[in-house]
């Protein structure tokens, strides 16, 4: 596809369960970002990949959150032992190599996670 694709678009889970959210970036984009957006708030940075490696994971809130990008394309955000406070829209974005110094971030439509 032409844009950033995220699946699932909606996920409802129970407290304590494990969740995976997938992001398929724009073809050729080497930089990939994960953000979390709570209701009425701006997107909050989680992690940033350049290729396969995490260039900056300073935004991951705790060790329940983990993200991978094994082949430098698709990325998966993994949340263990989910809590109600994890409920939010998880946004993925991609950009060309060099990230924001070469251009803008292109965002997907997000995955809405609801933890009951």
């Amino acid at each position: 596809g032409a844009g950033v694709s995220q699946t699932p678009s909606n996920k409802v889970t129970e407290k304590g369960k494990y969740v995976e959210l997938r992001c398929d970036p724009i073809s050729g984009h080497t930089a990939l970002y994960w953000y979390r957006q709570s209701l009425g708030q701006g997107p909050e940075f989680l992690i940033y990949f350049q290729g396969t490696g995490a260039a900056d994971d300073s935004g991951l809130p705790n060790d329940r959150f983990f993200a991978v990008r094994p082949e430098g394309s698709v990325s998966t955000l993994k949340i263990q032992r989910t809590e109600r406070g994890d409920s939010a829209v998880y946004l993925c974005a991609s950009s060309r190599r060099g990230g924001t110094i070469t251009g803008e971030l292109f965002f997907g439509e997000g995955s809405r996670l609801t933890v009951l």
Partner: protein
Amino acid sequence: AQKVTQAQTEISVVEKEDVTLDCVYETRDTTYYLFWYKQPPSGELVFLIRRNSFDEQNEISGRYSWNFQKSTSSFNFTITASQVVDSAVYFCALSEALMIYNQGGKLIFGQGTELSVKP
């Protein structure tokens, strides 16, 4: 530390009015990038503009204009003759430039300003 402040939480105007959305940023970097994104009710963030810290020229694109002033660390956005389709949440964002790695850093967003344009 980097920070972006959008003091206006909500703005409501009547169609054809001009409206300015304020953005103030904090950074210790000398090289950085500023952005505005629009988030319509559908939820997807739409890129509007990107400026680097060395370019203080104001920019106009149709009904949109941006005023960048380093002296006051502000990057304000004005919509002229607003339309109902402009109703959305607008985010200002800041990114550092990791020149040693020849790449940009993470994008830091403000809290957003919800603009409502009534007919």
